[in-house]
């Protein structure tokens, strides 16, 4: 187990190197620079600025310098948000993104799993059709459509909840973004849970459990659900990645100061270091999450052993 974990962490290094290298050079070949503005800066000032940020060095030198700093955990200064380092911006934004993302995943599991289980037990009944129809709608209506409609209906027309803003993470401000972010995942999880539950309910060990006289509740809760949860667990990795991408839009719509918004703004503003920082940060996050999900999976399923 420990060896497997170490191996996976070692494998993550080339992945991250690729991410960093691609995004570094992509940003630099882009036309336009961080100091392009409405007003043309005098050439001397621009030269000074470039020197201050080491942008006047040859590209390979800049790359090596960036990598060196990265090894020390230094993402460099932001070009647009003056007086802030990228690390500071990420550390400001991440707790916010983590809060809505984490809550959204939790909500998706709390609602999606029971729905899927109910649909599987009552297969081909009204409950099943209702749940699956709703789930399909959740998949077909993307969150960037749902979110503004939520904001309009609950925020503006009914005025039950604030239509946007963060307000230090107050509960009313959390509701709409978290719900909008989780709906698609609820739909996916409910569908997966239903499919996996139906497969498990048809298997031999469930027949055995019934044959030896267990009541239906025990069959479902003690035997079926545990087994059926496994494929859904392995979906959590992609789900987390999906929530992260989704939050880019959701943060934009609800005006939430998370990392997603920094990323989009940074990309549009050619804020090299900020974009690089967010991409690297998300890369590390996704790699770690996938690893955790895989380890969790092996802990739950005795058939899977990572011995090598």
């Amino acid at each position, binding site marked *: 187990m420990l060896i497997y974990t170490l191996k996976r962490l070692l*494998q*993550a290094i*080339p*992945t991250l190197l*690729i*991410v960093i290298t*691609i*995004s570094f050079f*992509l*940003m630099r*070949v*882009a036309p336009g620079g961080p100091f392009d503005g409405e007003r043309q800066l005098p050439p001397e000032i621009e030269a000074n600025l470039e020197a201050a940020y080491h942008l006047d060095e040859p590209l390979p030198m800049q790359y090596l310098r960036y990598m060196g700093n990265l090894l020390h955990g230094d993402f460099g200064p932001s070009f647009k948000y003056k007086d802030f380092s990228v690390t500071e911006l990420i550390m400001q934004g991440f707790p916010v993104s983590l809060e809505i993302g984490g809550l959204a995943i939790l909500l998706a599991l709390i609602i999606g799993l029971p729905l899927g289980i109910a649909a599987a037990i009552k297969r081909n009944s009204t409950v099943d059709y209702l749940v699956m129809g709703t789930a*399909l*709608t959740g*998949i*077909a*209506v*993307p969150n*960037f*459509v749902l979110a*503004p*409609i939520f904001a*309009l209906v609950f925020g*503006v027309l009914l005025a039950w909840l604030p239509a946007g803003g963060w307000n230090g993470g107050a509960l009313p401000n959390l509701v709409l973004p978290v719900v909008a972010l989780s709906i698609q995942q609820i739909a996916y999880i409910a569908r997966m849970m239903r499919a996996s539950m139906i497969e498990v309910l048809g298997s031999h060990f469930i027949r055995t459990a019934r044959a030896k006289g267990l009541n239906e509740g025990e069959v479902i809760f003690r035997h079926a659900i545990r087994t059926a949860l496994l494929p859904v667990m392995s979906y959590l990795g992609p789900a987390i*990645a999906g929530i*992260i*991408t989704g939050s*880019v*839009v959701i943060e*934009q*719509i609800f005006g939430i100061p998370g990392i997603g918004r920094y*990323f*989009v703004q940074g*990309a*549009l503003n050619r804020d090299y270091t900020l*974009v690089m920082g*967010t*991409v690297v940060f*998300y*890369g590390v996050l*996704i*790699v770690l999450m*996938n690893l955790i999900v895989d380890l969790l999976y092996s802990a739950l399923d005795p058939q899977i052993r990572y011995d090598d």
Partner: protein
Amino acid sequence: MTSESKPYSGDNADGAPLPAGGPNPPRAPEPETTAAPAASAAPAGESLARDAWRRLSQNRAAMASLALLIAIILVCIAGPWFLPWGLAEVDWNAFGTGPTLENAHFLGTDANGRDLLTRVLYGGRVSLSVALVASFVSLVIGVLYGAISGYLGGRVDNLMMRFVDIMYSLPFMFLVILLMVVFGRNIFLIYAAIGAVEWLDMARIVRGQTLALKRREFIEAAHALGVRDTKIVTRHLIPNAIGPVIIYVTLTVPKVILLESFLSFLGLGVQEPLTSWGVLISEGVDMMESAPWMLLVPSFFLAATLFCLNFLGDGLRDALDPRTR
């Protein structure tokens, strides 16, 4: 009658006769809609495609979705010819009016006085073409990559799949966004970028199929006959892996449409004067309070298309998956 217990004969996809095994009860004559020439020469069996089509046509939800999908596609292609307004044509008498029969603004106009129905249909052309081309790109890359990797096996396979693993853990959405920012919002780039992102699952699926297939007798027979490797891959392996591939393509298409809309929504998609459903939705969001139809109309088209594609994908999976027989 529908539940003839015959083995999943993937090697029958090209309409070759089935190995004559098991009695085939006489069937009621079926409309010869999809009959391939070879199928008529093989009365003992049924080509996989025909079998799948029969099963699919019994699935009402899938057939309704297919019909609606075809309708949406036809309307997007032909509709603009019959509408009096052009894509960027401004009606100086109607800025941001709601749906009305007057001046043929059936679904209203946007804030700049452009007819919304016309724009939605043109946007549909873009969104659907992105879906088609990008899915095709991912299909070609994924199938070839997966088939080669699975067929060659050994160290090459290991290396190729390790590469796929690395690609999997890249935060792709961000790289696509970077690409769009860097190279400008070009529709051909969108085709390529999305296609290049979506081939990974396809490669894994095809590799798995290939691994299972390449030990089968007919591949051995091909070897024994001296068929070249490239020909075995293209003529024998890929056609036989086609079932799961079709299922996966129907699931890729909605993903691609969604991805394009997502990019367009962030302002990174196609550029004016071109438009797409994602662009229209994002314009609609800005005008949501004063002109809700601007959000609702393109959202409806997008959602209906995604809905149909998902239903169709589910139906195809049921029709092609041997385990559900």
